[in-house]
C-alpha cells in the first residue's frame, strides 16, 4: 500500500506537490457538494415550503420528474413511450448478437417505424398525440436517435460521393458537405423554424419537429461524411485494385471490402459525432421545442419553484452524462469487438 502510494503519488517533489494540491482542491469541492446534495437536502413533501434544510431541494425534481421525462405527453398514454424504450433495449441487444447485416438494418428500420406509430398514434386505436405535446427526455432521445440513425447512411453516401470519379456527383457532395459544415446548427434550426414557413403556402404546415429533425439529420450527415472519408482514405489503393481484378463491381467492392474496414477504423470518430449530436439536441430549445434541458428551464420559471433552478440543472446534467457515458462505453466495446 505505502509502496504503491510512494510510486504513484509521491514520486519526486513535483508529483508530491501535485498530489497535495489535488487533495486540497477535492477537499474544497467534495464535502460541500455532498453536504448540499445529500446531507442537507430535502426530498420529503410536495411544495417548496418543505425545503427548509438549506441544501438542495430535490422536491422540485421529484414533483416535476414526470414532466422532465415525458414533457406534455398525456399521462394515461405514457405507457406507449415506456413500451418503446423496452422494445428499444431489446432491439439493441438483438443487434449486438445478430451476425447478419441485413437483419440488423431491418431491425433498426422496423424499430423506427414502430416507435413513430407508438408515439404519434393514429393506428390500432391509439389516440393521436401531436408532436407539440412531446418533450423532456423523450424528445431529446427522439431527436438524437433520429439524427444518429439518419446521419450514418447519409454520411457514408456523401463520403463515397466525394471520392467518386463522376464530376457532377463529386461536386454536389462537396457542395453539400461544405455548406452544411459552414453554418452553425443554430442557424440551420432558425432557417427550419423561422424562414421555411414563410415560403410555404399558409394552409400547408410542416410539423415543426419534423423540420428540426431533417435539419439536424442533414447537419450531422455532413460531419459524418468527413469522418467516414477519413476512414476511406486509410484503405490502401491496392485493395481496391485487387478487388477490381477479381471482377467485383463498385458496390460490391465498397460494401464488402472497403467500407467494413474503413468504418472499423473510424468507430471512435463516429461515436464522437454521435455524442456531440446528442448534446447538440439541447439547441432545439431556441425554436420552442422542450428537450430535457428546456423542460427543466421552463419548469423552474413556475413562481412556486423560482429559486430551485440549480437542482434542475444538476438533474439535467446527470441525465445527459448517463447517456453520453453509455455511448462512449458502447464505443469501447465495439472497438474491442471489431478491433
Amino acid at each position, binding site marked *: 500500500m505505502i509502496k504503491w502510494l510512494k510510486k504513484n503519488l509521491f514520486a519526486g517533489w513535483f508529483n508530491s506537490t501535485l498530489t497535495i494540491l489535488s487533495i486540497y482542491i477535492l477537499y474544497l469541492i467534495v464535502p460541500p457538494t455532498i453536504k448540499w446534495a445529500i446531507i442537507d437536502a430535502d426530498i420529503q413533501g410536495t411544495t417548496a415550503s418543505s425545503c427548509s434544510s438549506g441544501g438542495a431541494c430535490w422536491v422540485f425534481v421529484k414533483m416535476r420528474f414526470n414532466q422532465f421525462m415525458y414533457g406534455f405527453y398525456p399521462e394515461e398514454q405514457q405507457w406507449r413511450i415506456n413500451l418503446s424504450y423496452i422494445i428499444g433495449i431489446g432491439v439493441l441487444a438483438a443487434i449486438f448478437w445478430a451476425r447478419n447485416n441485413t437483419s440488423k438494418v431491418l431491425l433498426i428500420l422496423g424499430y423506427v417505424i414502430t416507435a413513430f406509430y407508438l408515439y404519434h398514434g393514429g393506428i390500432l386505436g391509439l389516440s393521436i398525440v401531436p408532436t407539440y405535446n412531446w418533450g423532456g427526455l423523450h424528445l431529446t432521445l427522439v431527436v438524437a436517435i433520429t439524427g444518429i440513425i439518419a446521419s450514418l447512411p447519409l454520411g457514408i453516401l456523401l463520403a463515397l460521393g466525394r471520392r467518386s470519379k463522376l464530376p457532377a456527383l463529386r461536386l454536389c457532395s462537396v457542395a453539400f458537405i461544405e455548406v452544411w459544415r459552414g453554418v452553425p446548427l443554430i442557424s440551420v434550426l432558425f432557417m427550419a423554424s423561422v424562414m421555411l414557413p414563410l*415560403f410555404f403556402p399558409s394552409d400547408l404546415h410542416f410539423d415543426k419537429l419534423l423540420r428540426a429533425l431533417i435539419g439536424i439529420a442533414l447537419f450531422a450527415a455532413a460531419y459524418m461524411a468527413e469522418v467516414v472519408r477519413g476512414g476511406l482514405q486509410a484503405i490502401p489503393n491496392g485493395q481496391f485494385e485487387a478487388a477490381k481484378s477479381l471482377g467485383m463491381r463498385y458496390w460490391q467492392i465498397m460494401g464488402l471490402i472497403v467500407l467494413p474496414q474503413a468504418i472499423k477504423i473510424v468507430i471512435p470518430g463516429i461515436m464522437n459525432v454521435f455524442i456531440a449530436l446528442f448534446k447538440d439536441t439541447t439547441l432545439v430549445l*431556441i425554436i420552442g421545442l422542450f428537450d430535457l434541458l428546456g423542460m427543466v428551464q*421552463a419548469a423552474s420559471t413556475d413562481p412556486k419553484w423560482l429559486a430551485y433552478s440549480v437542482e434542475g440543472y444538476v438533474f439535467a446534467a446527470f441525465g445527459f452524462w448517463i447517456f453520453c457515458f453509455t455511448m462512449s462505453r458502447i464505443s469501447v466495446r465495439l472497438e474491442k469487438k471489431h478491433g
Partner: protein
Amino acid sequence: MRRAGAALLLCFLACSLSINAKTLEAVQKRGYLQCGVSQSLPGFSYPADNGSWSGIDVDICRAVATAIFNDPEKVRFIPLSSKERFTALQSGEIDILSRNTTWTFTRDAQLGFEFTNIVYYDGQGFLVNKRSGITSAKQLDRAILCTNAGTTTELNAADYFRANGMDYKIISFEKDTEIVTAFDSGRCDAYTGDQSALTAQRLKLANPDDYVILPEVISKEPLGPLVRQDDTVWIDLVRWVIFGLVNAEEANITQANVQTKTKSKDPAVQRLLGNNQDLGKYIGLKANFLVGVIKAVGNYGEIFERNLGAGSQLNLPRGLNNLWNNGGIMYAPPYR
C-alpha cells in the same frame, strides 16, 4: 434586381396573409385555437405542476378560446422563442400571439400586425439591497448596474442616467441566473430590468426580503396580444373579449357570482352578459359568450391576482394595472 427580390418577398408575405382573412372560420373548423406563448416567463406563461400551461398570457388565450368554443381547454399553446414569434404569426402557424410583447410603433405599423389590447403595463425599474440605503433611482449616481445583454434595458438605462446627469457602469450577462448570482455576491449595486421580471428574479436571491424595487419606472412597456392586421373581424373578437374581462371587473362580475349576475337588472351588466341585447353577433359569437369566459378564467382582476398578484408567489402590486377608477390606468371602452 434586389428591389424585385424584395417585392417578391413582400408579395409572398402579403399573399400568404390575404389567404388568412377568415381566421374565426378556420379556428372553428379546426376545433381549437392556436396560441403562441413564451417558452417560460414567471407569471406570464410557464408549465405548471400538473403539466398544463399557466400564466396571464395563457389565460388571455383561454378566454378567447372559451368565447368561441365555451371550453377553456380548446386551445393549443405553442411555445415560441422571441425571434420566431412574429414569423409564426405571419405564416399562420398561430391565430394569436400572447407572448409578453411590447406594443411599439414599428411592430404595429411595419410588421403587418395589430395589437388588440394592453393586458399588462410593465416598465423598467431597479432592484437594490435595502442595506445600501438607496430609496430612489435618483441616488444611483456612480452605481454599477447588472442587466441582460443585448436588450433595450441597456439603452433605457443609458437614456435615464444621461437625462439625470448621473454616471454609471453597466455589466451585462447572457442569462438571468448569472445576473442573480452576480447581484447576490455584491458585484453590482442595482439590478435593472422590467419590473415584473425583477419581482420574479428577486425570489431567486438568497434572502429576497433584503431587497427592494425602487419606485421609479424609467420606460414604458405595454404588453399585449397581437394578431394579423388583415382580418378585422378577428381583431374585434380578440379585442372585445379582453375588454370584456376588464369591463366585467369594473361591473363586479366575478367567477363566483357570474351566474347570479345574469339575472341582474343593471342595463350595463345585461349588455355585457348578453341579456336583452345580442352584441356578440357582430364579432361572430353568441350573445352570452362572456358568461362562459368569466366562469372559466374570471375577470381581469382575478386573472391578474391569480397569476401575478397576491394569489401567486410573485405578489406584484396592481399599480398601473389597476382599474382607472381605482388608481390605475386599465380602462376599457363600454359595451354599447
